[in-house]
């Protein structure tokens, strides 16, 4: 199958001015040498196959949005070529061109034309747009009287009614309440069924795993990983750990500190992967910098798409020196994959957080046999006469 989008050694350099000369005088006075080069993208190449949904992930400032803008033709690459087949619609912002003085209806037509819908197309889907946004009673009001939630819903409703071959989406899925998000996700699946090509930039890693066929990770403007979403999402987490272990969010007053945390396998190892059905012990060492009387230790295990799969808490009570807590996870029923562990120490009475390390630790679960269930549940079957 031909590639819908070919990204071929794309680089993009931005000139960073300390203060951008935007008047004649400033331009004459300041020499151009004051501009510094910033490589937003460095030699990035990949293909997006037709009908494929590609997730584009990376840390803030890794160049995701810039890449999307290059594909959309909003900014020009410094070198390299992007080729694509068919019509493209870029949703970089919801409700682009919305004007507060215009009514909802007028804004729908204005916004739709920016997304490549003709007036006739818009006439046809107008009812569906209004229904999707759940704003039937407000379409003749000026949007300056809309709440921000209404605006976002209207913007998204127009966006999902576009009719391109290729859809570029930048972080706009994360809007609205849960039910609206579910609706948006349903719409995305509809696009996939219709065989459209989708490139999705997002920070919601679980969305990538749920929606995308493939993922690409950018790191400081360079292509860092490419492959199955679950692998690339994992790679993103590793990159986070490798780069700066201290970066992993740590919070707390440190009145009681986590002095050491270990994930111990059945045989005492702290390194090798865990086999399905084995035990795993999460061992926390707490050190009190100040005596407290109501210490509680807790942990949470999350899968690589950020879903919690296990948690627990244990009251320790008073502590003056050091104490060790062990959480033993028996016969681990998890499917193969990577899991991340959050551990914390807090006050049982006030809820005051002493020390939390968010997803600072991880382990891998492996299984020789192929397996497809999301969790291993024990099932009792029974039959009775009626």
């Amino acid at each position: 199958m031909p590639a819908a989008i070919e990204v071929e050694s794309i680089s993009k350099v931005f000139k960073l001015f300390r203060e951008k000369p935007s008047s004649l005088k400033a331009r004459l006075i300041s020499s151009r040498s004051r501009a510094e080069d910033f490589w937003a993208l460095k030699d990035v190449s990949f293909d997006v196959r037709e009908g494929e949904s590609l997730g584009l992930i990376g840390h803030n400032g890794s160049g995701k949005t810039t890449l999307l803008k290059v594909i959309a033709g909003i900014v020009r690459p410094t070198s390299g070529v992007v080729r694509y087949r068919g019509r493209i619609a870029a949703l970089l912002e919801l409700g682009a061109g919305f004007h507060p003085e215009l009514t909802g209806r007028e804004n729908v037509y204005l916004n739709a034309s920016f997304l490549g819908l003709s007036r006739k197309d818009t006439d046809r889907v107008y009812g569906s747009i209004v229904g999707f946004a759940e704003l039937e009673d407000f379409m003749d009001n000026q949007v300056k009287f809309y709440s921000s939630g209404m605006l976002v819903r209207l913007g998204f409703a127009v966006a999902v009614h576009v009719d391109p071959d290729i859809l570029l989406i930048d972080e706009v899925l994360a809007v609205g309440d849960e039910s609206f998000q579910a609706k948006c996700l349903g719409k995305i699946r509809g696009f996939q069924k219709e065989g459209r090509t989708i490139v999705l930039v997002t920070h919601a890693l679980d969305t990538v795993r749920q929606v995308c066929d493939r993922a690409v990770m950018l790191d400081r403007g360079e292509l860092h990983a490419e492959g199955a979403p679950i692998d690339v999402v994992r790679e993103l987490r590793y990159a986070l750990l490798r780069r700066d272990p201290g970066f992993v969010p740590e919070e707390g007053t440190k009145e009681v500190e986590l002095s050491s945390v270990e994930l111990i396998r059945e045989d005492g190892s702290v390194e090798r992967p865990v086999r399905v059905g084995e035990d795993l012990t999460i061992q926390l060492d707490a050190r009190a910098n100040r005596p407290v009387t109501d210490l509680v230790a807790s942990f949470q295990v999350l899968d690589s798409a950020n879903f919690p799969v296990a948690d627990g808490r244990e009251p320790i009570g008073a502590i003056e020196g050091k104490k060790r807590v062990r959480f033993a996870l028996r016969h681990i029923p998890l499917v193969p994959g990577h899991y991340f562990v959050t551990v914390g120490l807090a006050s049982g009475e006030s809820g005051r957080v002493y020390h939390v390390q968010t997803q600072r630790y991880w382990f891998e679960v492996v299984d020789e046999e192929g397996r497809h269930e999301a969790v291993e549940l024990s099932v009792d079957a029974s039959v009775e006469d009626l």
Partner: protein
Amino acid sequence: MAATAAVTERTSEPPKLRIIPRVREIVACREILANLVRKELKVKYTASVLGAVWSLLNPVVFLAVFTFVTVVLGNNIPSFPVFLLSGLLAWNLFSVALGLGARSVVDNANLVKKVSFPREILPLSTVGVSLVDFALQSSVLLLFMLVTGFGFRASSLLLYPLAFVDLVVFTVAMVLWISALNVRYRDIQHLTGLALLVWFWLTPIVYPGALVQAKLTSFHGFDAWNVFLLNPLADIVFGFQRALYATVSPNGRAVLPPVSTAWLAGLLLAVLCASLLLLSLTWRLFFRMSGDFAEEL
């Protein structure tokens, strides 16, 4: 599906303007243009009770005031309101389009950064807005000419379409240039306001062209009249005045330059050629710069 679809390439090459495909692209996006013009007009007149009537009121008040002035105080120029408005409306189209157009790209920074569409549409939409105003105001003038029995002269009215095309082409050329420059140097929008003020008085709108010709033909032994004619707006205004006001020297008073209609048509054709040339230059400049608009804003 898309296997047969057209392949689009995005490269680092500064884009070369190829007029015909580009025109086709802009035509394909005409909905955006129409919607932007509609938006501007709506925004201009919403929350005002009279709405578009304000646009009509402007020339109506002009006509009333100048009719009053002419009748009560007397004036050297017979039917001064018609003389004034025939030139002034053309000037308004130009100056409104340029004044708004200078800021058109900068004011829509958000769109430019987030949506991909032919950037020409932004300055063109301001020309569209001023064209709508021009049409409304012209209808007032034409009505006035009919009602007061001023009437039309068919032979010189033929200049009208030519002058109009000149005006639109020249305006578009200027607006493209100014709006692109203003992205890089914000001084341009202030400069434009000043330049328009000077330019207005360099153009024979409130004073008769014949007077200028008489003074300039031998200006210290130098034929400055031809220099004066280098101002395309002056030529275009002459065209509009000749087409509508028609009479060169009513009651023996020198008002319009005493040139033949054919000569004026020739002049307007020359202006058209120059304007088209200017358009191709400024469009190229706009097109080249528009690739970087999203970064510069």
